[in-house]
């Protein structure tokens, strides 16, 4: 079996072969510019620029790989600002011993994700670290998007609607179940997906309706609501009955004592929008595969300013506090 060895980082023939025959040939011979930097032409004044590093165990999971995660995560960071994602870089840190076949699968999933999102992978880097100094593979990406509409940030006011494009907590719950070999985790899958087409479609129809949007990754939906309400004169109220959460996610979360509202998503955007357009935005989301389970899940209120909270099924309120640290599974 071919594996990554220190020679792949030597700067010599082995490294060039790896880059040309494996990495570049999969990620895009037509788009990757092998030089010190890629030269890009953009038709606008403003660009959005972002970077992110990806570390995840396991590197392959139901619904994606670290590769698709890296592309979709970067695309989504650009898209939620209202930008159109165009270019991505890909820096790989590979641990000695990683099977080349595994690397290929990850690169292929990256390429597929890039094609689907309509972004070009234009430059990259490869480093090898000794066995034990890395966790199979780390990926750093930077992304450039063109700002073709106004940036989607407007003052939030009481009465605005809180919208999400689908089920909550899928990615985090699936990964936690996988990491711990939970035998009862069948049916769980990451929601890893690019959201730029869905978001662009909303902006096209309602250029001024969106007040705020963010992809609900680490910390989940509750953490985003805490960010936007921090120090604000309004609060964010969710309706428990309206939350789209899969039964499998509910079940595993209940057993582990974790809350799906704090679990990571990798294909979900939380949008705060003028309530006049809320149902229309949901209707547009539903036309996209990533928006099939879209719903209005809450509202901005004057009750409990500065707090995120939830009206439970039976009509009581409970605070959704700021997450202190990682959620840990409980005893029984």
């Amino acid at each position, binding site marked *: 079996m071919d594996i990554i060895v220190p020679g792949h980082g030597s700067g010599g023939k082995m490294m060039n072969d790896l880059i040309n025959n494996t990495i570049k040939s999969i990620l895009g011979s037509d788009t990757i510019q092998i030089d010190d930097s890629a030269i890009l032409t953009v038709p606008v004044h403003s660009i959005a620029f972002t970077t992110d590093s990806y570390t995840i165990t396991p590197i392959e999971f139901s619904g994606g790989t670290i590769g698709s995660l890296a592309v979709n995560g970067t695309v989504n960071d650009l898209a939620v600002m209202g930008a159109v994602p165009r270019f991505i870089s890909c820096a790989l840190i590979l641990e000695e011993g990683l099977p080349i076949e595994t690397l290929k699968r990850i690169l292929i999933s990256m390429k597929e994700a890039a094609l689907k999102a309509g972004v070009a992978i234009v430059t990259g880097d490869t480093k090898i670290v000794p066995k034990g100094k890395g966790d199979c593979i780390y990926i750093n990406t930077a992304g450039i998007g063109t700002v073709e509409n106004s940036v989607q940030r407007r003052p939030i006011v009481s009465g605005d609607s809180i919208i999400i494009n689908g089920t909550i907590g899928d990615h985090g719950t699936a990964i936690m179940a996988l990491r711990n070999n*939970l035998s009862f985790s069948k049916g769980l899958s990451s929601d890893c997906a690019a959201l730029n087409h869905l978001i662009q479609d909303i902006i096209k129809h309602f250029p001024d309706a969106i007040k705020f949007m963010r992809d609900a990754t680490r910390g989940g939906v509750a953490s985003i609501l805490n960010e936007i309400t921090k120090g604000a004169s309004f609060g964010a109220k969710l309706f428990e009955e309206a939350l789209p959460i899969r039964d499998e996610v509910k079940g595993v979360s209940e057993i582990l004592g974790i809350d799906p509202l704090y679990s990571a998503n990798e294909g979900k955007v939380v949008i705060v929008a003028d309530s006049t357009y809320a149902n229309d935005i949901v209707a547009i989301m539903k036309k996209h595969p990533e928006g099939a389970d879209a719903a209005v899940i809450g509202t901005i209120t004057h009750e409990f300013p500065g707090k995120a*909270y939830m009206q439970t*099924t*039976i009509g*009581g*309120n409970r605070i959704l*506090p700021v997450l*202190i640290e990682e959620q840990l*599974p409980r*005893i029984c």
Partner: protein
Amino acid sequence: MDIKKEAVLLSQYTLQTPVAIMEVCGTHTTEFFRTGVKDIFPQGLRLIDGPGCPVCVTSNDYLDTAIAIGWQYHCIIATFGDMMKVPSSYSSLSKEKSKGLSVEVVYSPMDAVQLAVDNPDKKIVFLSIGFETTAPAEAVCVLEAKKRNIKNFFILPGNKLTVPAVKVLLDSGEVNIDGFILPGHVSAIIGKKAWDFIATDYGKPAVVAGFEDHDLIRGTLLLLNLITHANPSVVNEYTRVVRDDGNPKALEILYSVFKKGDASWRGIGTIPESGLLLNDDYASFDALQQFTPDVPPPKEHPGCRCGELLRGVIIPTDCPLFGKACNPEHAIGPCMVSSEGPCSAYYKYGRK
């Protein structure tokens, strides 16, 4: 009846005098908040948290011993995630892990047995903490380890029984409790009848309740009716899970491996016959008998009031450390870090 209608009944319930009820179980503590049921309590109804969080009632010397065994005998400590951040006298498992102690979080005791199989050259010490609910599963593991002749699996016995603790609270008369919400999962094992003494011996009503919003609402309504009509009986709301006699098979397995013995409870002290110790037949799995670590003398944080909290004397917000010196990032007492701990629940959900 529709759950929302029952919610309205509860929120509009008229109490002639203030009423204090105790939820014994830590999961109830959290669920009363999480479901919003506590938020719709009628005026005059007060919920007192009881001694039902297994992590919280575990005294400091237990964790001190676990840490000492881990280091001094080069063992892997296998534990439920809840225990990781609980302060010991001088440290915590989480802190010791950063210093290099082998600590593995497991989801079921059987994972710890598997850990022993997968690491034949290492000794695995499982921290056996919990009440009647989890103890049968732990007994099964010991049986399994014996059957498979696994020599490197040990448990540090810390399981406790809920009934003796409730008796101690009632005997002390320290707190005026008008009625009890009793733990559903524990009762599934020991049976509803195990609680009848609350009515017959102490003249108080109690309701065995499940953990979903409708259980909490229905259970609280049932209890308020019993209190209002001065009807001291023990009623089972959680009939879909709890039988009068519990689960005799589980109890049989439990007592084939464990025997009752004294146990030390945080805040309450030693309660006779309230702990589960390994039977002599299984002494070879008992970490306390197989290892003789040098354990430093236990100490409590001087300001920590977890003990009074677990006796129902105070609620979390009565403690001067709550939310200030003691918070989830820097917990001084276990009630702030366990997911079933009252302080954790108040900190997370109770501050509006």
